[in-house]
């Protein structure tokens, strides 16, 4: 199963499922949210950065969605509606616990038109399927994502982890699409810079693969 939730909506008839729930088959709500569990948790985590709080937010969001399902309008995707709810839950939780770090509100980072210079690496051509087998690389990536400034981590989580599109991400976070694009670019460049040293040392020495590189 991929992280994408769009497939889930396509394979089943969500509007019909929702209509049945609203007309009394309440237990079907369990099925309705099943494909979105991962999205709910990871989205909440991208805001609150704490496992316990993220789980609580995900549960609260599901309960809220259940209570207010009749407010869902078919003109948006159910997944978009749900992600908006969980983002709100998570932001509220963040405010309540007063753990909001300054950088979550700090728009000046974007105001300064600073250039992000990626880390150059010329000897890494590890193919993803091999990299995926390396547990420590995944751990490093998790940490690097957690260390991103809040505004970048949230956009990165929705776009690259949940594979939501620009418009959906913008709607869920209440920002315009251009901000989503700018933040995503910076998040990716920051991660590239952070992870480059780890990727570099992992370069597999495979002659055939390197043969077609211009410098070999």
């Amino acid at each position, binding site marked *: 199963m991929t992280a994408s939730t769009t497939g889930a909506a396509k394979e089943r008839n969500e509007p019909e499922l929702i209509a049945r729930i609203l007309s009394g088959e309440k237990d079907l709500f369990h099925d309705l949210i099943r494909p979105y569990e991962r999205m709910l948790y990871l989205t909440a985590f991208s805001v609150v950065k704490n496992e316990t709080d993220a789980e609580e937010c995900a549960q609260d969001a599901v309960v809220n969605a*259940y*209570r207010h399902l009749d407010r869902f309008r078919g003109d948006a995707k159910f997944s978009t509606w749900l992600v908006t709810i969980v983002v709100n839950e998570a932001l509220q939780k963040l405010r309540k616990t007063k753990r909001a770090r300054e950088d979550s509100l700090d728009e000046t980072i974007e105001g300064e038109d600073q250039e992000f210079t*990626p880390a150059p690496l010329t000897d890494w*051509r590890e193919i*993803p399927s091999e990299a995926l087998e390396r547990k420590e690389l995944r751990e490093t990536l998790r940490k690097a994502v957690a260390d991103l400034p809040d505004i970048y981590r949230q956009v990165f989580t929705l776009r690259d982890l949940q594979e939501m599109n620009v418009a959906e991400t913008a709607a869920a976070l209440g920002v315009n699409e251009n901000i989503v694009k700018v933040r995503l670019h910076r998040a990716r460049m920051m*991660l590239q810079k952070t992870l480059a040293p780890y990727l570099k040392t992992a370069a597999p020495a495979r002659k055939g693969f390197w043969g077609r590189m211009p410098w070999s």
Partner: protein
Amino acid sequence: MELNCRHVWAHISEYIDQTVSAGLREEIERHLEHCEICSAILDSTRNILVLTADNRTFELPLGFSERLHVRLEEEMNSSGGGAGA
């Protein structure tokens, strides 16, 4: 016009998302053909995205799903007003 590396870096994200114009795309590709540094940066960024989307990288806490459905079940049983009723 020949693009320089900085120019390419500024558009890497859009290039990956395939949202650059056809003209710019061509220029970036021409640059990538001879610039190994930019090619490596592009590859590494792409690979980070593949790793990110892999379910094993960001996992759910053990028992998350079970607890979620228990909570939902409790809500369904406790309130008469759920699911928009």
